[in-house]
């Protein structure tokens, strides 16, 4: 059975009057096309600016990282033994000890805990007591259990 190329589904006949249908479809299509293009442009523009932003942040990160290395090197120069000795002898007028007299002192310091040695004793743990508000929270809500 031949089908008319201009046939419109019956369900749409009421909605689109025949005389307005073509121009309306064209207008809607043009509007959709325009909107799509606009959206595409906005998206492209967004992606482009995002790409530039990512690049800028990456440069910023590298810059900060480089500054860290630089500051660390500067600190190392300031902490160098040669500089410390020069400061001690010239500015503070210190001189090497002529004699070393070891003395016994009452101290809680563990052997080797000074600058020179490496202590093999475990470091005392910090007081990890819960803060006061944690106790209140525990009291108020028995369901919140501490892991």
């Amino acid at each position, binding site marked *: 059975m031949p089908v008319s190329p201009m046939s419109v589904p019956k369900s749409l006949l009421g909605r689109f009057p025949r005389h307005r249908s073509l121009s309306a479809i064209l207008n809607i299509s043009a509007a959709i096309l325009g909107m799509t293009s606009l959206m595409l442009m906005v998206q492209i523009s967004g992606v*482009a600016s995002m*790409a530039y932003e990512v690049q800028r942040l990456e440069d910023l990160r590298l810059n900060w990282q480089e500054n860290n290395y630089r500051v660390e*090197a500067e600190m190392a120069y300031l902490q160098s*033994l040669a500089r410390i000795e020069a400061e001690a002898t010239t500015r503070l007028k210190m001189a090497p000890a002529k004699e070393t007299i070891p003395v016994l002192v009452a101290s809680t310091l563990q052997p080797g805990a000074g600058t020179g040695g490496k202590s093999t004793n475990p470091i005392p743990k910090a007081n990890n007591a819960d803060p006061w508000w944690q106790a209140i929270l525990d009291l108020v809500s028995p369901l919140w259990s501490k892991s």
Partner: protein
Amino acid sequence: MKDGAIRYRRLVVLIGLIALGGLALLAQTAGIQLVQHDYFKAIALDEHWGRKDLLAHRGAIRDRNGHPLAATTTLYDIFVAPGTIKSSDLLSKTAKTVNSLLQVPEEKFLALHSQARTQPALLQAGVAYDLGNKILDLGLPGIKVEKAAHRNYPEGNLASTVLGIVGKDQKGLMGLEAYYNSDLAGKSGTIIYERDSVGNEIPLGFREREASQEGADIFLTIDRFIQRLAEKELDQAMKKHQPKSATIIVMDPKTGAILAMANRPAFDLTQPNLGDTSQLDRMRNRAVSDMYEPGSTFKIITMAAALQEGKITPQTTMFDKGYVVKYGWTITNWDGRGNGQVTMTDVLKNSINVGVVWVSDLLGPEPFYKYVKAFGFGQPTSIDTNGEAAGQYRTPDDQDWSPVDLATNSFGQAINVSPLQMITAVSAVANGGKLMRPYLVEKIVTPNGVRVFRPVEVRRVITPEVAKTLTGMLKKVVEEGLTKLAMVPGYDMAGKTGTAQALSATGYSNATIASFIGFGPIEDPRFIIFIKIDEPKDDPWGSVVASPIYRSMAEQMLVYLRVPPSGALTAAPGVKN
């Protein structure tokens, strides 16, 4: 008709020429498409794709407490692109800006710009990072700015021969920089991107980024304080005794960790001159790569072997005539005098050559060389750095060995060892008989984790009892020996001097190698120190030249390491002793 024929011929010629031209074009096209395809494809890709290298940050080398001994920062190198500024006004303005920023004379900039070359010319290297960024932001015409890694040495030339150097490409060339280059260097990254006709990156084009991986930080076993102490002592010794060279090694005998390794002459880390061959000699880590005849310090090994084999005790006696004749060769004591009836402790105390030759006779060649090998001589210690010497000596298995070798080897002549081998061997005595592998790197900290190097026990060479007995004998050497210059008041130290004849091209010369090796405190040894002074000008003896250095270093290290004296302490006011 005639005109028609002419026109026809002209037409044929024209068509022929066009056809020939077409064929030529076709051939050329075929040539481009088929024969030179790869070449043109590469050019096209090169035009289309840009590549940017992301340099990896080279890791730092730190001492055992984390202080950087070598660290990398980024600087900038500033270049001039010759002939790129056409306007004379702009050229003059740029020259003035460059002058104000870099303090480079305007004439220098103008001269470089007027050069007839296409490659950029270096205007100033090592420009500070902030200033380089400022120049980069200004976008000055005719100026190219490139990042350049710069290796910093906060402690100056400290441990220069151990650290080694990096080349301009930041690759390690010597020392630890070379040995651990793959860890320190990290991995460079790349950005591959599409670019437009003028070479700029297309914002939404293809972009592939392979991030660079930072180099690892290396934590050495070296302590910068002890290292500096050793180097200061060496500098003083070089001034006082004017030797050819000198070496100090400090080791933790319990672990094999090298606390200091210093050599003189050394080189300037900040300005190494690889073109100068005389500088190369200064770059060698003599503590590891040089061999020498240890002289009397080797008597420790002979005694250890004999004690372990039960051939002697400290109280065993022998008669010392002052000389002994071995297969036609006369071996004398260092002073040419006989000491009469002496104990084995006396043999060590007075460094009696005839006494240790007697001991080596008791031992016999096979056990003697078995212990020499067990103590690690004649083979590399496998320390983690380049250029280690294995040392050498003849054994009865060698055709040119003779029994005289056994006699001379027993007091450290005719045997070549490295300073590192010597300290490693004697540290086994300090460590209750266990030979440890020496090492320079404690841990490697990478962005992905930490690699820790644990001490490695190579083997047990002697029993703890023998080690204790020998330590007691070596204590007597320090306290009752020839000069007592190695004694440290308040502490019990053990040690042995060495004075060996130096080798020259024609045999033994009159010059000597003065050395001392000692450890302490003997109850719980915290360090072992090896000192070698090559060919001192003022005094040939190890007891005079090297022993005082041991005492000076030990005194300062004991304070630094907070080791209480062996004897009674002075009580502070209000404290019961």
